[in-house]
């Protein structure tokens, strides 16, 4: 009797395993062909000085990575990436948290606000780039119009055309496109916050900021860290919006690792070097992903335990 049941269980397990393999196979095949294989190729390309034309890629070992160390453009792009990562992560988090808390603690028309804030996040980057290029237009743009209207004519300039302001102008656009994501996710997380704790803190005399930092924020920490990870990783691999709005210019004022890699591979025919640069971005972002992921897991466990 027991043997029969065991045989039945084994048969079921086998049937399930077969079904599992069958169901996972198409997705796995696609990932293998269009993701894993090119990823391995990226590793190989990065060790060559291939120009994309000759059939045999000349193997150069780690020379591309050594060249990066002495390539001033790389350091310049890396510095821009760093600015992007710090401001471009902090700003959406702060704005997102502020707006989410304002909505959560009792505002009218929450749904309408949520829709308005979230809209930029779903718009295509190309359209965002076009709209903001108009807003920054040196002659007809709204930024300068507003500055002129309030008597700050001296500040008006060609925001995207001048090396000093271009990076921050594009970054502001990216922040505009991102903070709504943070608002919406934070707002959803805030629904699970224990209000008794907030009330207790209020009775103990904690002001609004103290309540936010010491009572509310710890409770949504896993979500906060998740949003941080998503935006931060986006900062490392920023490409589309810079490519669309300035292409890395003027000069190389807005060059980031992504645009520099693209330029090397597709404009300068330095496929090997471009690939090595693109790979570098992933390698640089990995430690941050791992650390944030660990922190997130710890917070989830703390909450559960």
């Amino acid at each position, binding site marked *: 009797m027991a043997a029969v049941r065991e045989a039945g269980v084994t048969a079921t397990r086998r049937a*399930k*395993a077969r*079904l*599992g393999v069958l*169901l*996972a196979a*198409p*997705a*796995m095949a*696609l*990932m293998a*062909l*269009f993701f894993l*294989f*090119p*990823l391995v*190729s*990226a590793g190989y*390309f990065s060790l060559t000085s291939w120009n*994309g034309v000759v059939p045999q890629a000349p193997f150069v070992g780690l020379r591309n990575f050594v060249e990066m160390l002495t390539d001033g453009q790389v350091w310049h792009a890396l510095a821009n990436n760093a600015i992007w990562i710090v401001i471009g992560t902090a700003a959406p988090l702060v704005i997102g948290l*502020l*707006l989410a808390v304002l*909505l959560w*603690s*009792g*505002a009218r028309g*929450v749904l*309408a606000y*949520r*829709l*308005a804030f979230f*809209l930029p996040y*779903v718009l*295509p980057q*190309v*359209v965002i780039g*076009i*709209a903001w*290029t*108009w807003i920054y237009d040196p002659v*007809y743009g*709204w930024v300068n119009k507003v500055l002129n209207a309030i008597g700050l004519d001296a500040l008006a300039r060609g925001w995207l055309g001048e090396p000093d302001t271009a990076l921050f102008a594009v970054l502001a656009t990216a922040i505009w496109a991102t903070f709504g994501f943070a608002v*919406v*996710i934070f*707002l959803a997380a*805030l*629904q699970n916050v224990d*209000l008794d704790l907030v009330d207790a803190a*209020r009775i103990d005399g904690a002001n609004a900021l103290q309540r936010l930092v010491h009572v509310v924020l710890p409770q949504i920490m896993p979500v906060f860290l*998740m*949003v941080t990870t998503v935006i931060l*990783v986006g900062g*490392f*691999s920023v490409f589309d919006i810079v490519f*669309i709005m300035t292409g890395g210019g003027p000069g190389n004022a807005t060059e980031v690792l992504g645009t520099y*890699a*693209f330029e090397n591979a597709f404009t300068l025919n330095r496929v090997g070097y471009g690939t090595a640069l*693109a*790979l570098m*971005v992933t390698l640089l972002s990995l430690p941050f992903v791992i650390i944030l992921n660990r922190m997130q897991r710890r917070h989830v466990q703390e909450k559960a335990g």
Partner: protein
Amino acid sequence: MTITGSSRRPGQTPSTSAVRQLVLLAFAFLSLFPPLLILSTAIRTPEDVRTAPFDLFTSFSVENIAAAWTRANFSEYFLNSVLLAVPSTVLVVVLATAAGYAFARCAFLGRDLLFYAMMLGLLVPFFTIMIPLYFQLRQLGLLDTLIGAILVLTMTQLAFGTFMMRSFFIDIPNEFEQAARVDGASEWQIFLHVMLPFVRSAAGALTVFAFLQNWNNFLVPLLYLPGGEYRPLTAGLYLLASGRTLDIGPLAAGSLLTVLPVIAVFLVAQRQLLRGFMAGAVKG
């Protein structure tokens, strides 16, 4: 999920309440202004746009939209956007649902290894592989083909989709599966008739999310459809915007044609969209 916050309102003084409303209004205005600028520019008369490019709603005409649709190829781009986004979205949902089930509930040899290999797709930004992928597609004869671009678009959403569907399948209690098995259902029937209905709304959320991502994708068509025959709205807009003779009216109209479906999907399905985000983001 209620979005209204707590029913127990902290005793707000009228002044903080006014400041709060003002801050919210300011940011809402900031969020809506660029899309409104696009709309306004698209529906003003061409002469009006020429003389005062970015003034708001000073005239009304559909001339720019007609010009974009008939003369600037946007009807063609629109069709191509549909031909790229719809099949790739269907593929993402079908493949991710199947794989999500396999990774969540079927034990087979090498499952964890395969799953981690797939999840690398969440970690590695697309542009890290975009260069080798270009040469690989060329070698496979898939460069400048619809099928090539559709498969690449599908790939870009597949890791996230699988991860999301897997987390929903994991949550289904075992009892349902066992009851069906006692009733003599085959594994395939259990998957189709018992498990799939549980994740219907999750699959809906993924559909909305993947469609928006595929519709908005810019780099895949720009790089892998260089010939122009299958150029979708995003790539068409980019080329128009970076062209030498900049005609703002049709550019605005083209932008409007690109975002109208996005906004329609967003308004109709924002609940599902949010579900997709939360599932992918928070459950893991």
